[in-house]
């Protein structure tokens, strides 16, 4: 019985010492931090097991708050924790922005565009572009090396048989990796609702475009005239869409003599804009 009392007393003593110590330390060494980090840290399991690859829960919380880690970065917490963190992050960052997807603005694949040489080197567009500007007749169009497909973290792109990249829009997250990688800058991020695109980026005069590509924009200005919303303008030998004005009315698609303008199925006309 005596021993039990000693146990009681010593554990009690230990408890007091430690808790007082912690309380004092917490006050004395308090550091101001992002509130979200605190909240996320509370939402996290707090096990500090390191399974996430970060140095403890706090590190992960900081990383999530800074956007360096995904909200589901904690493998231990599972979905519950992830959704909670998503809530915390969501309330702080406001409404979700419109979803953007990548669009490839070139239609000139193997069948439509000419080659000026036989390329023999690493299959990477950026390298092709350095080596004498690549093997493609058109110096503005897609080089077909598939670098965009390679860099896509979500497997949302693939190369079709015609040697052109295709975006799988359901998988695309609009991260912009492909946009960054493309040496020809033919990939852009566009709001997913827009279903009409001028798939050419050639600034060469129409005559030269015709020599190297069957489907390149020849700057005939028919689309510009046709568009009821002034969404299309031709500058530097190239027709370009101002997506802010475009209502996906598809009038331009029909008039393009070289079929550079392409419409996508399942993206209806945007009525609201028309009214405004």
């Amino acid at each position: 019985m005596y021993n039990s009392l000693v146990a009681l007393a010593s554990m009690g003593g230990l408890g007091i010492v430690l808790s007082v110590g912690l309380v004092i330390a917490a006050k004395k060494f308090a550091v101001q931090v992002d509130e979200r980090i605190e909240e996320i840290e509370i939402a996290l399991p707090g096990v500090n097991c390191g399974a996430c690859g970060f140095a403890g829960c706090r590190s992960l919380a900081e990383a999530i708050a800074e956007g360096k880690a995904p909200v589901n970065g904690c493998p231990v917490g599972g979905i519950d924790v992830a959704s909670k963190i998503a809530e915390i992050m969501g309330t702080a960052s406001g409404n979700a922005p419109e979803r953007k997807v990548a669009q490839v603005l070139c239609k000139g694949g193997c069948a439509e565009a000419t080659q000026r040489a036989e390329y023999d080197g690493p299959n990477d567009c950026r390298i092709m572009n350095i080596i004498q500007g690549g093997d493609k007749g058109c110096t503005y169009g897609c080089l077909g090396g598939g670098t965009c497909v390679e860099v896509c973290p979500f497997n949302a792109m693939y190369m079709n048989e015609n040697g052109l990249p295709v975006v799988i829009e359901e998988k695309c997250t609009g991260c912009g990796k492909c946009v960054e990688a493309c040496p020809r800058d033919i990939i852009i991020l566009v709001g997913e609702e827009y279903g009409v695109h001028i798939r050419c980026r050639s600034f060469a005069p129409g005559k030269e475009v015709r020599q190297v590509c069957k489907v390149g924009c020849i700057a005939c200005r028919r689309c510009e005239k046709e568009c009821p919303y002034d969404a299309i303008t031709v500058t530097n030998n190239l027709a370009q869409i101002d997506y802010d004005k475009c209502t996906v009315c598809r009038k331009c698609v029909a008039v393009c003599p070289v079929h550079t303008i392409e419409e996508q199925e399942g993206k209806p006309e945007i009525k609201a804009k028309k009214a405004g």
Partner: protein
Amino acid sequence: MEYLLLFIGTVIVNNFVLVQFLGICPFLGVSKQVSTSVGMGIATTFVMVMAALASWLIEHFILVPLDLVYLRTLSFILVIAALVQLVEMFLHKSIPGLYRAMGIFLPLITTNCAVLGLSLNAVLRSYNLGESLVYGFGAGVGFTLALILMAGIREELEFADIPKPLKGAAIALITAGLLSLAFSGFAGMI
């Protein structure tokens, strides 16, 4: 000389991670980058020496005199947890530079079973204070060594075309196995 042998023995022969299976979670979790693993290793070594000291004091001034050995696990883990938290808070406030380099790893160390294992082992082997400290330091260095070696290999593996089912933890475990195999050459040396 004895201390040196104890140190070498703890670092390579009875490596905490690769031979004794202590601290596997952080070993697998934080060994993705060499730079991170260096910080983690140093922080762990620091905590281990502190834990060796603290647990020796508790054992010899509280638990044994008061006949409370059954409170060993409980008191050790509590003290380690509190110690780590105090050090972390102190660093965060007072030495932010050191905190960024090393302190961020501190919370991870509380639940590192290598630290508690170290405290318990040191007591079970009835090490004296000096031996406990060397043992703690050696264990930390051994942990760091394993961590850095693993991180070096894993950084290389990032570029390798590893079969899909093996990616991630599976290949890390196999690598750890081969690393452990390499260390087994020292078995029985000291």
